[in-house]
């Protein structure tokens, strides 16, 4: 059984049998991989506290060819992200990022995606409670971009006519970005977005997370992102963590 040694982030973990756990990892070398961690639930198990959600470290996997579930040999932790549990907004935003990676990353090696996800989770872990939506939006757009679906924000996505930054434009999900007034007639179902909203997405894509949104703007951005994901990435399954994050169902506490 070949051994894969790689940096990895725990994106999902669920209990299996009496004391084991199945974990889903985003790896630097092999995309998303599932592995059985035997005895991981025991307090004196060989993984210690390493296999908690969003933890990062060096993983060794015994890879079973042509199988979807491998065996985790070891996990040497380098970074925990316990701060994500200190605020419900952080936790739901981080879960949304994990969901995007789990659903759309695949098994191909993608070091850039790995580094982006690690950085996004770190930023959300440091996020002030009132800024978790902005940081979550910034992270989602960066992940979407690394997955190859960067929206066109400078010129018309259909005729490539440059558009002024100050213009309010139509965002067409099916066209992959903003469209000029003439082309908007060819792309029904578009959504008008103010120039400030376009600028915000551009800032986020560039890694600048200094954008401040009022509540209504944040809601509009989440809706736009959800629609974009639905048009370009999502299969027919619902994005459950995204729904929780978008509707802030848990923040009523």
């Amino acid at each position: 059984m070949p051994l894969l040694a790689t940096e990895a982030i725990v994106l999902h973990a669920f209990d299996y049998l009496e004391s084991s756990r199945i974990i889903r990892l985003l790896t630097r070398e092999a995309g998303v991989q599932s592995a059985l961690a035997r005895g991981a639930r025991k307090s004196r198990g060989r993984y210690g506290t390493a296999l908690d959600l969003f933890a990062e470290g060096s993983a060794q996997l015994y890879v079973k060819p042509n199988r979807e579930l491998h065996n985790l040999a070891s996990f040497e932790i380098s970074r925990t992200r316990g701060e994500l549990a200190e605020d419900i907004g952080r936790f739901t935003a981080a879960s949304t990022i994990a969901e995007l990676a789990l659903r759309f990353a695949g098994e191909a090696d993608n070091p850039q995606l790995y580094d982006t996800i690690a950085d996004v989770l770190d930023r959300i872990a440091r996020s002030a409670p009132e800024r978790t939506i902005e940081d979550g939006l910034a992270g989602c757009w960066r992940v979407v971009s690394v997955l190859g679906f960067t929206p066109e924000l400078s010129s018309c996505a259909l005729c490539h006519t440059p558009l002024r930054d100050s213009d309010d434009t139509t965002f067409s999900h099916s066209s992959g970005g903003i469209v000029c007034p003439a082309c908007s007639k060819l792309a029904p179902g578009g959504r008008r977005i103010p120039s400030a909203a376009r600028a915000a997405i551009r800032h986020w894509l560039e890694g600048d997370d200094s954008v401040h949104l009022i509540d209504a703007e944040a809601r509009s951005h989440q809706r736009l992102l959800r629609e974009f994901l639905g048009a370009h990435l999502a299969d027919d399954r619902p994005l459950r963590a995204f729904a929780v994050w978008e509707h802030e169902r848990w923040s009523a506490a």
Partner: protein
Amino acid sequence: MGAIDDLAAELSKLPGIGRKTALRLTYHLLKRTPEQSKRLASALTTLAEKVRPCPQCFNLTEEDLCSICRDARRDTGVICAVEEASDIGAIERSGEFRGVYHVLGGRLSPLDGIGPEDLTIPQLETRVSAGVVREVIIATNPSIEGETTALYVQRKLARYPLTVSRIARGLPVGGDLEYADGVTIAQALTARRAMS
């Protein structure tokens, strides 16, 4: 072969049992006497018909109330909130807790679609609002999801005049410091207490 396939299909739905193991178990049952198989069937029927969540604490019981809720010697002013009914056994084995329990029924997990509405947090609030409870000890697992669940419960209970506490984290008894991982040691240091 209908009965064999039916039983194998049902057994293969159990955790950790695949198609091959299900068939092996089915053939094993066929080698047993009919009485033995009937006893197993009867036990399963009883389990399905009689065992249900306690209406007060959601522990599993065959009675109207579970044995802990019925026990007049327990301190009803202290509630220990746990994720699953199986966690009650672990705490009871310690012999240190004389209060009562509340089984939340899981932990918050957006990725699994488990939200507050899937847990028994409103029922915990109802118990607390009666005014008898002095303290709620949140004993969810020390994981990101468990901690978030504890935070959510703590916020929900913040408006009631009671103490909300969290079980401590740290080194396991009998363990060697040398072999403990850094996260556990860090938490043990943070939660250190003065010696008197």
